[in-house]
């Protein structure tokens, strides 16, 4: 297992596209926080600090696509053949991918958080407001956002293993977040908060400033997200075992 984990890291280290994807995360955080401050329609209070750092969690969209690359990217370039020829026990391959991609997504969340904190503190100081470094709600938001990053990477690995077509998996997952959870979610009312992206928002979106729909309480959202992550990981493992690679 150890060598499989190292191999997955080596696979990532020897190509560039996944890193460009993860690089987009702190850029989005920077743009989001700057836009929020420049629009200037909210006071820069403690709630605004949490709101600013809630952008960390939103970068889960990038880590989800990053996770999709793990299996669907291998099908796209047909490297999956070599991977399974070297390691016929596919469950171990998928397990290693789940661990490695979730770990890198967590690191990406950490980088986004550091960048977000720096950008927010700079804006606050620019506006002459003191930044409350000890604000617990902000730190909880950051922690929740980082966990959301990791969970969505693992869910992305699962989606990629299920769909296998790279373009298809990305389209399906982004359409799910935008259309199903965003639009259909408003129609089904209270049920929408049990869906994965909204569960992630409950965990990582602070005081709910990012959203109009009703979210679960933070820790309930975390629990629901954890269950989705386990379900997708289990699906990735079971479907990969049986499927023909042709």
């Amino acid at each position, binding site marked *: 297992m150890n*060598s499989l984990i190292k191999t997955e890291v080596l696979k990532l280290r*020897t*190509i560039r596209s996944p890193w460009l994807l993860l690089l987009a995360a702190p850029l989005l955080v920077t743009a989001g926080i700057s836009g929020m401050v420049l629009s200037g329609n909210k006071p820069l209070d403690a709630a605004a600090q949490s709101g600013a750092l809630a952008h960390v969690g939103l970068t889960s969209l990038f880590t989800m696509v990053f996770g999709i690359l793990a299996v669907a990217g291998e099908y796209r*370039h047909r*490297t999956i053949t*070599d991977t*399974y020829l*070297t390691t016929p026990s596919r469950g171990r391959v998928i397990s290693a991918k789940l661990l490695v991609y979730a770990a890198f997504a967590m690191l990406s969340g950490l980088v986004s958080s550091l960048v977000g904190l720096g950008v927010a503190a700079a804006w606050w100081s620019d506006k002459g407001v003191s930044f409350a470094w000890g604000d617990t709600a902000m730190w909880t938001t950051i922690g929740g956002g980082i966990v959301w990053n990791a969970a969505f990477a693992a869910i992305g690995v699962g989606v990629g293993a299920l769909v*296998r077509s790279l373009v298809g998996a990305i389209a399906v997952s982004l359409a799910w977040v935008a259309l199903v959870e965003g639009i259909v979610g408003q129609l089904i009312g209270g049920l929408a908060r049990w869906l994965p992206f909204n569960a992630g928002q409950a965990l990582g979106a602070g005081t709910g400033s990012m959203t109009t729909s009703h979210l679960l309480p933070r820790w309930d959202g975390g629990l629901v997200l954890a269950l989705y992550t386990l379900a997708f990981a289990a699906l990735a493992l079971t479907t990969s075992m049986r499927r023909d*690679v042709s």
Partner: protein
Amino acid sequence: MSAGITVDGLTKRYGPVTAVDRLTFEVEPGVVTGFLGPNGAGKTTTLRMVLGLVTPTGGRALIDGRRYGDLDQPRRVVGAVLEATGFHPGRRGRDHLRIIADAAGLPRPRIEEVLDRVGLTDAADRRVGGYSLGMRQRLGLAGALLGDPRVLVLDEPANGLDPVGMVDLRDLLRGLAAEGRTVLMSSHMLSEVAQTVDKVVIVAAGRLRYAGPLTELTGAHGETLEAAFLRLTSDPGSDSDTGPDSATDATASSAHH
């Protein structure tokens, strides 16, 4: 039989379509065996079942007496070249081999040996996206040789090779067989096959049409391999080019079945 390939009643059905139909043959060490058949004959599906990538509907395929998935260190037993496009275009050739070596627990110095053997040392630090088809074939071959395997399975290894590459490949495969290894290669290029292989297995519409020495096939009727091939495979039941063999570009990988 040690280090040979045993295909025993191997069958694969995709819904109503029978791609491989109770195929039985043996591939022996020490010779090069050609695996021939029209497009859609089931060659690629058969090779993928031998390698544990596709699960048979019936029958079994054994390497060295065991199923591929039961081999302890498959890369040290079997080397396979399946398709020219199995590389990430942004990855360097040497890195592709490092990944296989690390995952299979093979020593890194072995990478330089196989790069040298396939003549790819100079291009090893370039990204695969800039490789010609022939260079990709060489890289695939390097990956197959990495574990110094006793059995080699090659699907259309001659595709995209220039005349020099073709001669190199022939010498390489005959050399490997002379070392006592088992070599099974599928190919469309019959004149090339005729110069490379000692034995042939011919399939059409998923069924076995001939398995035996090349000289027996052509010698008995004084035919060329091409004439014998056409005689054995021109059957009303055999279909044209709609099978798994016909997918040649990367985007078609999930289009069939």
